[in-house]
């Protein structure tokens, strides 16, 4: 039997090799939120630069593939559709082109560009956040900063529960089919099976909630006093510097925006 190496103080430091993934999730969150806000102050040019930065970041973190696959299918697609709809349908006066029976107006293009830019700003940052941040790491980091353990528990157990719910759903469907409730065949049939499938799932979950709450109690979850953890998410000098730079960037961006607005 091999006992794995235990660090000197018993606490494992959760630090992936990649420097970007190693960042404290709070730092990543802070930077992305700031980037979102800053891009909303300005126009599409800034957004474009930021998106280039996001792509480079994803590449550096080894997550470019995942990012592109999510990003293109959601945010980009949505932005293109919004832009097209606005350009074609927005009632404007300056007609640039005619397409079939619709007019592309300059006002429409302008509006479309603005909304699409907003969607791209927020969406691209969101997607980058989802591929860079591991939820488990983030809840731990937040807990280290002082958020309540209950909040962490809710997030983490929900994550675990989702695949369990899926599996449970399958069992429930079996049980209902076994008493004559059709679940295959037409959508209408499936709609009728909806209630007998979903209700036990919900009821079970509710019953399960009480049992789980008692289990948590049995494990001392609500005991007063400090908790310890076997895992620590590091918050390094790099993290603090990055966050400081981010706050500075927000201030500068705000200042620039106001100055521009006053011109």
């Amino acid at each position, binding site marked *: 039997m091999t006992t794995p190496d235990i660090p000197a103080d018993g606490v494992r430091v959760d630090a992936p090799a990649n420097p970007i993934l190693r960042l404290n999730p709070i730092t990543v969150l802070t930077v992305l939120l700031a980037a979102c806000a800053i891009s909303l102050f300005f126009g599409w040019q800034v957004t474009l630069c930021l998106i280039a930065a996001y792509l480079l970041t994803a590449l550096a973190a080894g997550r470019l593939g995942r990012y592109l696959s999510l990003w293109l299918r959601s945010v980009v697609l949505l932005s293109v559709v919004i832009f097209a709809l606005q350009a074609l349908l927005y009632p404007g006066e300056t007609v640039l082109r005619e397409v079939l029976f619709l007019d592309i107006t300059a006002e429409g293009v302008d509006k479309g560009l603005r909304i699409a830019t907003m969607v791209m700003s927020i969406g691209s940052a969101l997607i980058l956040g989802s591929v860079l941040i591991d939820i488990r790491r983030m809840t731990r980091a937040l807990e280290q900063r002082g958020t309540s353990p209950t909040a962490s528990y809710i997030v983490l157990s929900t994550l675990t529960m989702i695949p369990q719910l899926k599996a*449970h759903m399958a*069992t*429930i469907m*079996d*049980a*209902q*089919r*076994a*008493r*004559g*409730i*059709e*679940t*295959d*065949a037409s959508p209408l049939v499936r709609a009728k099976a909806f*209630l*007998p499938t979903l*209700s*036990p799932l919900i*009821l*079970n979950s509710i*019953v399960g909630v009480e049992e789980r709450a008692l289990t948590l109690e049995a494990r001392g979850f609500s005991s007063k006093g400090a908790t310890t953890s076997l895992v620590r998410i590091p918050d390094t000098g790099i993290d603090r510097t990055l966050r400081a730079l981010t706050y500075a960037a927000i201030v500068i961006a705000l200042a620039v925006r106001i100055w521009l607005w006053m011109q």
Partner: protein
Amino acid sequence: MPLVSLEDVSFSYPSGHRAVDSVSFAVDAGESVAIIGQNGAGKTTTVKMINGLLRPTSGTVLIDGADTAAQTAAQTSRRVGYVFQNPDDQIFNPTVAKEVGYGLRRLSLPAAEREERVTRACEAAGLGAAMGANPYDLPLSIRKFVAIASVLAADPDVVILDEPTAGQDLAGLLRLTALIDGLQQRGKAVITISHDMEFVAQNFDRVIVMADRAVVRDARADEIFYDTGAMERASLRPPALAQAGALVGPEVGLDIDRLNAELAARSLTPTTR
């Protein structure tokens, strides 16, 4: 014609994992069969093929001559009722009566007959007084009987009970025995998966031992319990009566009178009575 017939039935999951390997047996109306074996032996998968939840990858499952592969599970369930181990996977109606009657809706019965069936099923399951109660206000062991009643109400020809004795007290065990008796008397076939050998000895005439995805032995209960090899493969100990009988010989079976006679004959200190 047997009510349930499995002919060289195998089942593999889409992942390739083989769960049941060439199983064949038949169950007649009025028979009671217990399927025993370790977890992973293939008992649950086999039984799910009997009630149509799973279709065999090879071989045929016939219910009263009808191929389960030609029907949906819901259709097969009209002939084969299955009481799941966890009643909470089924129950969602606000009262016991509604829950028990739920499976009857598709049978298009006149309201009076439906009510009568529900009442009869509830009473057989000992729920006569609880028909208006919310199932989730009742203890788990009683909810088990709600699930059983809901299968009884649909009056299938085959009833499958999956680990019915888990968590039951004496009253529950007695009620199960009465239920199984009643079903057999009405000509139903009763199949159970159980690891409670006392329960099996009390209520089931025939035992099928499964191990490693196949049938190890299929024989009368009073023979199986003396088959040490089969019982070992099932990782189960025989009921007390059979363990005592083993001290004498397999001819004792589950006959207590025979056992007493044999023991009296061999007694070193015979007492005069």
